[in-house]
Each structure stands twice: as structure tokens, then as C-alpha cells.
């Protein structure tokens, strides 16, 4: 099973700063093992961020996003106590959902 994400959502002056760290290898499919065989690509393809169930950011990524991806976004409106849910799906169908509360 995929490892947990780390999500931080802090509101200041009506704008909520959302930072997400995802635990993922983001293998490019370009690298080779020492025996010459190609390490298959394995990367997050799509993710979404929702505040109280409403999607605010709908993202998609390729394998050139860094290992253990970090994303940051700003959203107008959320209040302390609102729920932020993040989920991702990778090219092998693995997925992960985590949530946090806006502070």
C-alpha cells in the first residue's frame, strides 16, 4: 500500500495555502538497472485536491515531476476547520487518499 501523504492547509487573509507532499518513486522509465534492464516507469498520473468535497485543483503529471512530489496551491475561501482531501492515482493503478483540516 502506498505511504501516507503530508498535507498542510493554512488560511491567512482569506487565502488558504495548501502544500502537499506525496510519497512516490516517480520512476521515469528511462533509467536502467546495473544489468542493463530498463526500470519500468512508475509515476503519479492524476491527483485532485478538494475542499469540503468540492474539487479545487485537478492535476495531472508526467514522470519528470520529482521523486516524492511536492505541490503548492492557493485557494480563496476556505475557513479554519474545513476539510482538505487529496487523492492520487498512478500509472499502475495504485492510489492513496489523505485528508487534513484547515488551520
Amino acid at each position, binding site marked *: 500500500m502506498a505511504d501516507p501523504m503530508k498535507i498542510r492547509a493554512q488560511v491567512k487573509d482569506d*487565502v488558504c495555502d495548501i*502544500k502537499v507532499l506525496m510519497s512516490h518513486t*516517480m520512476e*521515469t522509465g*528511462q533509467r536502467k538497472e546495473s544489468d542493463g534492464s530498463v526500470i519500468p516507469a512508475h509515476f503519479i*498520473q*492524476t*491527483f*485532485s*485536491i*478538494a*475542499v*469540503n*468535497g*468540492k*474539487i*479545487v*485543483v*485537478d*492535476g*495531472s*503529471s*508526467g*514522470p*519528470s*515531476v*520529482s*521523486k516524492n*512530489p*511536492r*505541490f*503548492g*496551491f*492557493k*485557494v*480563496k*475561501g*476556505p475557513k479554519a476547520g474545513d476539510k482538505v482531501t487529496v*487523492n*492520487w*492515482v498512478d*500509472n499502475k*493503478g495504485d*492510489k492513496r*487518499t489523505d485528508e487534513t483540516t484547515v488551520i
Partner: protein
Amino acid sequence: MDMMRRTLLKGIGSSGVLAAALAAGMLKPTQVLAADWNKAAFEAKDVAGALKGIGATGAAESKDLILTVPEIAENGAVVAVTAVSKIPGTTSLAILVDKNPMPLSARFDFANGALPEALLNVKMGQTSLVRAVAQAGGKSYIVQKEVKVTMGGCGG
């Protein structure tokens, strides 16, 4: 497809249909999203192909699109990129690295109060232009900056 996707995103978001559907166990957002990966754009081998894939061919340069990247990256494995669009009505941003084998790194659609800005880390194999593309009102805008990738560590 992208227009449809945005429309869908807006529609779902504003009406709360998604939340209702989720609550009813009718659909998982992951299922919707997984089908939504833009294969043609992400697997394009050059910038022109990637831009075509996201419907941004012929994007106009804009000063209202602000791209922040390091001038020199000590380590190409993790290069922080921030893109902020001041173009009214911006609904999406995309990040491209020209000299990566597949230039398109990521694309974001915004809705329900999300500001059109994004921070992410990308890999860079070598010194290259990094581009941000914004889409607003059916038009595309672009900006680019060079990032020099140096050799870190002990060279062994």
C-alpha cells in the same frame, strides 16, 4: 477533451454533484481522474507536440504570466518551479521542460476559488528552458526561462 474536462470540473464543483455522487457511492474521483491523463500530451517527445496535446499551439507570450525558477540548479533531480497567472479568467496552468525526453511535466486545472498558481518540483536532465503555459478564455499564453543545471557532488 480538455475543454470537456474543465467544463466537467466546473459543473461538478459548483453544483456539488461530485460530493453527492461520492456520498452515494456512485463514483470515486480517482476513477474519473485516472481516465483523464492526457497521454498524447504527456508522451509527446518535443515541446510542439506537448503544446498541441494540451491545445496550446501558438500560445502568445504574456508578461502577466510569472514563472519563478532558479537561475542555476545545484541538483537537476529537484528543481522548484512556481507559476502564477495574473491573466483574468485563467483556468489552467502547465509546466514544460524543453530538453526533458518528454517535455510536459504537469498540468493543473483550477476551480472553486483556487487561484491560478502552482508550485512543484521537477527533474531536469540538463540545462534547459522551462516554460509555463496558461489557458484563459479559450486562449493560451506562454512564458519561459532558462535553468542551468550544474554538476553536484564529487563527480564519481
